[in-house]
């Protein structure tokens, strides 16, 4: 972050309180809504996929960004270079180890270990 916050303390607290209200309302919309509003049938089933989609939506740009950045800089050769980016490689290791072993800690240890090795 290039600049720092120079708002009056009262405004910072007002922002915090309003953001809190926003998050609380968003998280509870359907929990406090009348029961008739609860999603049912196909919509209810569809919503089961929302967290998976949200996690992937958070992860995909981060994992693929090294490839895109490298390709933007140097074309296909850059793309190939992006394949060796520590972030991309470590993500790949996590996916492969997780698939092969079904052991979350082993997958995490493999990915983190390789990332620190390549990034440092």
């Amino acid at each position, binding site marked *: 972050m290039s600049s720092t916050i120079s708002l009056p*303390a009262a405004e910072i607290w007002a922002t915090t309180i309003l953001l809190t209200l926003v998050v609380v309302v968003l998280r509870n919309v359907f929990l406090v809504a009348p029961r008739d509003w609860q999603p049912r049938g196909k919509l209810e089933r569809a919503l089961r996929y929302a967290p998976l989609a949200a*996690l992937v939506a958070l992860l995909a740009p981060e994992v693929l960004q090294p490839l895109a950045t490298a390709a933007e800089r140097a074309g296909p050769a850059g793309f190939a270079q992006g394949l060796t980016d520590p972030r991309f490689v470590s993500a790949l290791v996590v996916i492969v180890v997780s698939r092969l072993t079904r052991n*979350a800690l082993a997958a995490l240890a493999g990915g983190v270990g390789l990332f620190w090795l390549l990034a440092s």
Partner: protein
Amino acid sequence: MPGAGYTRAMPAIFRPADLRQHAPGSARLRRRHRREAFRLMLPACLGTGCWGLVTGIAMVQAGLTLPQAIGMSLFVYSGTTQLAALPLMASGASLATVVATGVLTGLRFIVYSASLSRDLGRLPLPRRLLYGYLMTDTGLAQYLVRRARETPPQRVSLYLGYNVPVYLAWHLGSLAGIGLAAALPADPRYAWLGMLAMLVITVPMVSSLPALAAAAAAAAVAFVGVHWPWRLGMFFAIVAGVLAALAAERFAGRPDPAVQPR
């Protein structure tokens, strides 16, 4: 008479406390849920702690005082919202802009609350509000994969089992970041550890054709929309993922076992 409508056959979570204490089966189940959740959520907790650490450092380095940073961490409890708000506050954006950004970055919570409403909707209002506040991306994802195996009342303890550890990990990481901000640089590598932990949670969820379709569609839209304003790319990625999963379910001819209705 208070509690007159409750019987021993009723699920423990809907009984008054005096009856609940005589339900050893439910207590055993809650302990099992806590153990299972702790084991499953350990990698996610490590990652969430790293995320919290980065956010804590970012808040202090953005110019928040110690109480302000702790207050924001404890009350807002949403990394994406906090990290989106900080640069706006630093640039002197209006309060309305910061709040509008908070709404847009948190749109996914509406979808989450809709997916939880049947399980938590019968609880008293204060508990619904508290449990809604505890909702996390990784905790909810794990819960929704495993909820179908439990009866509705048992799902409450399952939900808490997955989300409370994430809550604790977040605040421990965030408080550590706030405390160590002067000594630690805002190294983006810490945040990447959080991403890897999130990946560990996500990979096993892609275990069927509809889940694969959801992941592929969400990834494509999120990647294309990464520079869209107010993180709208993420919201549309969720919508695309959900629609793709439904289309794949229709193609496969049967719903994903993990999302079978109760």
